[in-house]
């Protein structure tokens, strides 16, 4: 039955869950939000990162967070290569590349899923660390450490990315590249290289986000599918390209999912992301934090 305690509990857990959603959506906020790349393979990259973390944790007993940081440079290079392939085969060729781009990234997502199944099988995998399974008691509320880790990392990533995008030459160019590529060329830059670099960063962020994914809950090869709706909901709700907006939007989604889960049961939770997305787009098409013009 409904009780205030239960609601409070749902909100607190929802905020932390939302921070976790924020951490896994930040990369998409760069690749889709700023670069207009229809990166539907983003959640598949995320799951791939989780398996890389699992591999390091299982075989070499590396702490999952350390593993996440270790794979970050590899994912950066992976991002550079993926964008180059996408650019050469699709984006370069013209205006309808967006639609065909989605097909490209769906293909990449399925290839990754199959490769993971071939290597690791279809069973769920999880990692071990001191902070997994323990909880912090705040009054009557039990807060799992793994969600506090997600909270800390999401906040740190948001601050870092915001600073990078607003304070560095490269960051400003990344925000400018989707606004006017030709004008950016006149600044003496190569827009394709800027986008490639930005895509590398968006993918690098997934290294640590993938560690969070497997810290928060066990993963299986198809888990990415559940995160397509969530991550795109968060990025579009935020207003394309705002990092702090992404975190706030993710927290709104997390709280909404958590309350619905508590009040109405788990079967309704997956519908929440799209319901919120449609509701917000009807009222504020530019998203919550989208800047106009």
């Amino acid at each position, binding site marked *: 039955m409904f009780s205030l305690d239960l609601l409070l509990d749902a909100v607190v857990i929802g905020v932390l869950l939302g921070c976790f959603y924020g951490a896994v959506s930040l990369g998409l906020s760069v690749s889709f939000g700023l670069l207009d790349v229809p990166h539907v393979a983003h959640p598949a990259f995320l799951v791939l990162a989780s398996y890389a973390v699992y591999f390091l944790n299982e075989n070499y007993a590396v702490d999952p967070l350390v593993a996440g940081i270790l794979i970050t440079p590899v994912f950066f290079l992976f991002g550079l290569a993926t964008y180059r392939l996408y650019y050469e085969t699709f984006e370069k060729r013209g205006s309808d590349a967006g639609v065909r781009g989605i097909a490209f990234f769906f293909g990449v997502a399925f290839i990754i899923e199959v490769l993971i199944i071939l290597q690791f099988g279809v069973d769920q995998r999880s990692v071990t660390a001191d902070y997994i399974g323990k909880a912090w008691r705040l009054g009557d509320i039990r807060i799992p450490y793994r969600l506090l880790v997600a909270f800390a990392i999401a906040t740190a990533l948001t601050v870092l990315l915001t600073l990078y995008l*607003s304070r560095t*030459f490269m960051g*400003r*160019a990344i*925000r*400018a590249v989707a*606004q*006017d590529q*030709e*004008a*950016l*060329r*006149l*600044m*003496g*830059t*190569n827009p394709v290289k800027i986008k490639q670099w930005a895509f590398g960063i968006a993918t690098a962020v997934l290294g640590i986000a993938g560690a969070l994914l497997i810290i928060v809950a066990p993963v299986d090869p198809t888990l990415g599918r559940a995160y397509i709706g969530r991550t795109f909901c968060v990025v579009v709700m935020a207003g394309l390209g705002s990092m702090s907006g992404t975190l706030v939007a993710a927290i709104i989604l997390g709280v909404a999912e958590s309350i619905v889960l508590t009040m109405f049961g788990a079967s309704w939770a997956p519908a929440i992301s799209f319901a919120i997305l449609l509701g917000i787009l009807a009222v504020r098409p530019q998203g919550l934090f989208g*800047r*106009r*013009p």
Partner: protein
Amino acid sequence: MALSLAINDLDAGYGAVKALRGVSLHVEAGETVALLGTNGNGKSTLMKCIAGLVRPQRGVISLTIDGAAHDLSRLSTEDIVELGVAMVPEGRRLFPRLTVLENLMLGAFRKAARRSIDRNLAVAFETFPVLKERQGQLAGTMSGGQQQMLAIARALMSSPRLLLVDEPSVGLSPLLVSQTITKIGELNQNRGLTVLMAEQNFNQAIRIASRGYIIVHGEIVVAAASVDELRGNDIVKRLYLGGAA
């Protein structure tokens, strides 16, 4: 500082459409040269060829700096900016969702420009005080005149030696056109900037130009050595001044 631009027998086009035919012109250090012509005669295409945004089909665009010649028709826009050529594009082409200051900082993206960023920013704010007042505002929310000033200031951030200005008067009221042209003239007079300006407003352009060219259907039809020579030209009288030829 010795700099000169010499374009020789340039052809350019888009597919089967020839936008430029056998164009030759030159700009010497310290000059303000006007490229005059009405819409659709190839002014922008010529400016884009110099900036490396459009590849010419034939001809040479030679930029000589301190005795060393560079053929711009073979270089990328990146390299051309590096050589000290900056363009203020037609329609201003700002980054509307970035602030005034962020737009200016992007003008200084090249490594060489970053070293002199403080000095160039001071020059930009001194030349256009309104930009200093509004540095935190989104570029897209400014008035047309302010946007044109920002576009010019952004080009100055790369420490250019040759400034290409494409149709600065487009979309501005007569008073703002006059102010903008005066500013460009001041940059030439006070800062020694060499300027090539494409413009369709004849009377405004010749206020600051030392000489000019008239382009019609992609061909240079008049190359005048002085403003007086331009005024007295029969084609000019027919096209711009409404007088009997």
